[in-house]
């Protein structure tokens, strides 16, 4: 049987609470969006609440001329792609041998992986190491130290452990070595876990800024989030002075710095907002896989 209660007062309360939750999670972004496309005069007074006043896309066409933003965008894409490829590669190659019963010293390798999850050297020793390795202020500082993730290695290993041992054994009898077993049997079978690892990495690298702030003083190689930080937090970049001609045009249009900032937020967050409903299931899967092992 299934439970059929009447739609009562309790349901009304629950629905109202849930509507409130939706409102507080969605409204700030929505507010930024409507302000960015409102008429500059209304936007400057910040008197826009529920729907845009007027329709003005000029802020976006001004931003599109910002060379520094495009450059930072390019570097972010470079960091995201290289990190994702490398993290997937290191996760697979480190997880696969751990599933073999024949591996001598497996316990030591597992302990070697687990210790850094509980204890680390911290910010300063890592910083000194990066400097000593000559990675400081290069693009490699955002690639090599972050090209593996122990947590993902363990997730991948958990997934690999579910692949029947007999598959590997029969491949061995057919004369395959470990390299080809990994490449031709394990990798094709583990697309679900690779999707989880890949998408986690993409989102984390896309949103990360702290390593760049510590390791890359050179603004020319910094990712998009660092550029956003200069615009939104430090306010050392004045968007109203993008180019001389534009500055005059903007004075005429009364485009405020604030409206430009909000447009910048939308411009750089839109890819995430439009895609996350489709890949959220991988995050949910990652959390659940993690809790099984944790």
């Amino acid at each position: 049987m299934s439970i059929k209660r009447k739609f009562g007062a309790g349901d009304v309360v629950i629905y109202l609470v849930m509507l409130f939750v939706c409102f507080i999670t969605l409204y700030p972004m929505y507010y930024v969006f409507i302000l960015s496309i409102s008429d500059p005069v209304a936007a400057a007074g910040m008197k826009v609440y529920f729907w845009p006043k007027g329709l003005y896309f000029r802020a976006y066409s001004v931003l599109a001329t910002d060379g520094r933003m495009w450059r930072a965008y390019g570097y972010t894409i470079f960091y995201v792609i290289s990190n994702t490829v490398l993290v997937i590669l290191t996760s697979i190659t480190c997880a696969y041998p751990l599933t073999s019963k024949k591996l001598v010293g497996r316990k030591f390798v597992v302990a070697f992986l687990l210790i850094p999850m509980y204890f680390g050297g911290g910010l300063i020793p890592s910083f000194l190491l990066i400097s000593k390795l000559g990675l400081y202020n290069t693009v490699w500082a955002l690639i090599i130290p972050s090209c593996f993730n122990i947590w993902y290695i363990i997730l991948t290993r958990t997934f690999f452990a579910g692949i029947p041992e007999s598959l590997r054994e029969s491949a061995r009898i057919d004369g395959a070595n470990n390299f080809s077993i990994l490449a031709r049997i394990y990798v094709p079978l583990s697309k679900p876990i690779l999707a989880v690892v890949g998408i986690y990495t993409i989102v984390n690298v896309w949103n990360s800024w702290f390593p760049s702030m510590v390791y890359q003083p050179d603004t020319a190689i910094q990712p998009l989030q660092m550029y956003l930080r200069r615009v939104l937090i430090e306010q050392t970049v004045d968007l109203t002075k993008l180019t001389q001609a534009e500055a005059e045009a903007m004075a005429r249009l009364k485009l405020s710095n604030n409206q430009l900032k909000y447009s910048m937020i939308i411009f750089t967050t839109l890819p995430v907002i439009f895609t996350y409903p489709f890949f959220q299931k991988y995050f949910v899967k990652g959390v659940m896989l993690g809790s099984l092992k944790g």
Partner: protein
Amino acid sequence: MKPINNKIEGKSGGNSELSRRKRKSGLVRENMELYAIMLPTLILIFIFCYIPIYGLLIAFQDYSPGMPFLSFSGNIKWVGLKHFTRFITGPFFNRIMWNTILLSFYNLLFGFWLPIIFALLLNEVRSLRFKKFTQTASYLPYFISAVVVAGMVLSFVRTDGLANNIVAALGGTRKAFNTDPKAFPAIYTITNVWKSFGFNSILYLSAITAIDPTLYESAYLDGATRFQSMWHITLPSIKPTIAIMLIMAVGSLLASNTDLILLLYSPATYPTADVIGTYVYRLGIQGGQFSYTTAIGLLASVINFIMVFAANKASDKIAGYSLW
């Protein structure tokens, strides 16, 4: 593909001495292959995880850049616990420890229960479509970058920002919350909880879906109200998850969200916003006091470690759940 050592299993009949030797060489070969596959990653882990641990030695030295972490030529100045005592007796010790603990405590106080209540209520929503929509909406803040979130929040709390517009509409007076030390803990806690409550509810929601539905049916037949079955079935069923999350939360009491604080704070709000992580960043990375800040970091992680251990013991004794 070349056949390598596949003949071991096949022909065990003939010379047993030879086959044993072959099996042994097969095992060696197997292990060589396996280690070759994982060696690059293991080397990377050694370099980027283990060498920094070894680098903690500089907390007990007067280290200056260019010096080795450890050598026997005698050019290292060992200073014992000098940096630790300097920090503990220093003028900022109380402020930093207090801020760190207080901000984490607020976060625990408000951020810990909200995901549980949200998951419990969301589970009661009947319309599947509305449930899915609310869930997706609640994840949105998690996916927006900390920089953008902080940028939005800072613009909202300025005198002409959204938060002040609301305050003014309610009859209050406008205030520059972004430079007000008294407002910082609230701004930080609200931002942090807003950003993470939806995502933190995933674990509870998945624990709830694992509950046997026949429990609810028999409770319903016995006349239990919805609130009663929530209280007597759902909540006890997710108790282990709650206990483990609480252990981890208590264990990270000294590890506040340095990322977000670095973005939200300013010299004006240091009195309530400066925590261990931000202090280490400012004095270490920006100020070059490597030994001193390494000592602070080490002290914090040792205390953290002890607290996880203690919380785990306590949870094991009181509730019977533990991490290990």
